[in-house]
């Protein structure tokens, strides 16, 4: 019986033209604006000095040696290990050897770290401010409107997603409220932005949130506040315990077995 009964609400078609369209258009435009605002606010990543680069790459070299040690013969490996371990322990590669042993400074006082945080703040602001404004705008003008009906049935779980701002228990889930339409737009406009702005746009906030999950995945090994000397020491220990195996050992038999 419940299936046969179709709820129908007589809506003014003006609702459609004066709420649904404005919200969608405003959302797209904000996305575009946000993209350009982020581009303008971006500061070029600060260039690292030569010592910092050396510090990073040298540590990376140790890691490479550890993980790919099988590629070289054991004599070559032993020589490299000896060199790297003693250099790591002496702190040869450190950016500023004078600071060895001192506790790492507060990241708040480090100007480089501050700059990074400012960049993140700017990105966040470019996202937060328009979101707050539009949310306020919709709440002030369109709160409580039911603006459209989805052409397919949904389960009751979607009620909170599609009917926020309309507190009725018996309304069919297929009806969408204006506030929910805003949320749907907020998360669902990704492909529209790709179409308008190209692939790597800053309009979409989902992508931004993703990048905040793991900041600096490729940016560098050193996070601000971490003591590079400690990292060198632990890498030296790691290197010392590596068990070396040469990949060329028995390669001729492997090869013959595979091609004969």
């Amino acid at each position, binding site marked *: 019986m419940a299936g046969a009964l179709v709820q129908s609400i007589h809506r003014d078609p003006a609702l459609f033209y004066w709420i649904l369209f404005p919200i969608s258009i405003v959302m797209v435009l904000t996305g575009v604006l946000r993209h350009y605002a982020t581009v303008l606010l971006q500061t070029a990543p600060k260039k690292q000095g030569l010592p910092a680069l050396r510090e990073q790459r040298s540590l*990376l070299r140790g890691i490479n040696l550890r993980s790919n040690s099988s590629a070289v013969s054991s004599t070559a490996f032993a020589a*490299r290990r000896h060199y790297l371990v003693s250099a790591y322990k002496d702190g040869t590669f450190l950016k500023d050897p004078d600071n060895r042993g001192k506790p790492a400074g507060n990241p708040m006082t480090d100007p480089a770290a501050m700059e990074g945080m400012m960049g993140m703040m700017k990105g966040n602001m470019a996202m937060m401010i328009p979101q707050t404004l539009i949310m306020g705008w919709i709440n002030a003008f369109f709160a409580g409107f039911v603006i459209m009906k989805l052409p397919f049935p949904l389960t009751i779980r979607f009620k909170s997603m599609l009917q926020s701002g309309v507190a009725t228990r018996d309304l069919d889930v297929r009806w969408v409220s204006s506030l929910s339409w805003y949320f749907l737009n907020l998360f669902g406009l990704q492909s529209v932005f790709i179409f308008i702005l190209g*692939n790597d746009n800053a309009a979409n906030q989902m992508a931004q949130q993703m990048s905040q999950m793991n900041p600096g995945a490729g940016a560098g090994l050193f996070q601000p506040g971490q003591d590079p000397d400690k990292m060198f020491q632990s890498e030296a220990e790691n290197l010392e315990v590596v068990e070396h195996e040469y990949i060329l050992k028995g390669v*001729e038999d492997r*090869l013959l077995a595979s091609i004969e």
Partner: protein
Amino acid sequence: MSLSSLLRRSNLEALSLSQQTAQHLQKHASTGTSTIPIPLLSYPESTDIWLTYERLFLSCLRTGDDRAAFNCLEKLISRFGATNERVMGLRGLYQEAVAKDDATLERVLQEYEEVLAEDAVNTPVAKRRIALLQSLSRTTEAIDALTELLESSPTDIEAWTELAELYLSHNLFPQAVFCLEEVLLVAPNAWNIHAHLGEVLYISAMNGNENSEGKILAEATRRFCRSVELCDDYLRGYYGLKLTSDRLLSILPDDIKSTAQVTTVDNGELPMLSTAVVRRLSEQATLKLAEIIRTNNNSCDLAEITAAKDLLDRSTQRRQR
């Protein structure tokens, strides 16, 4: 890295790329020129476009179309600014290409040095300077500059490979081997580097003293084995395998057995290859080479195919005699 991979392209490919340049420039005439890009009216900007420009630029330079190359370069400069590191490197490349005599090249070199004095981290320009030193045949200076570069960035495999080539040209084999091993430590599955290391070892065995020749040749053989293990039907690998194993057969006494394995494994050195294994390797390499030559469908370099044929002919002649 993109630069070096591009240079490996065949001449034909480069030519066809550079012939597309005018077309491409026309098609994307509007990209990046207006200060405020209007969405939907212009092409959405993507990194691909600029990578294409870079590729076009390089292939134009290769095919001698300097004017088109200059157009591409201008596009890149107007987009990224003349102070962008990569663009600076490309600009230097252009200047080197159009330079008529050594005096002009010296001037370019001086420019590079000025840039580097201001900003020592500018890797593209540092690499251009090294390449220029090489083309001015001041290899020792180039080696010095390269070691300095590698001192500050020891994971740069492009630089390590280049340094290996330079050492090789000076017949400094242990140094070249060291450099190639560094490359392998970063990219352990690079079969071409494995084969190349085998080649270097082979050359050094030919030029070294008699005592260690067998040992180095065995190592070279194993390198080639690894290379073809990683990449089936790798012509260079099999060529080297054939070459080294034949050579090894000619100097090895007939009765080396694999019993030596137990005694020598302890100090980390690999045991000498047994004669039977070397003979089988050589046979397999001969078979494979013949097969590759027969089924060659223009995927390999013609010169390499010819060289392989030549090697097979020589070895059959020797056997008949």
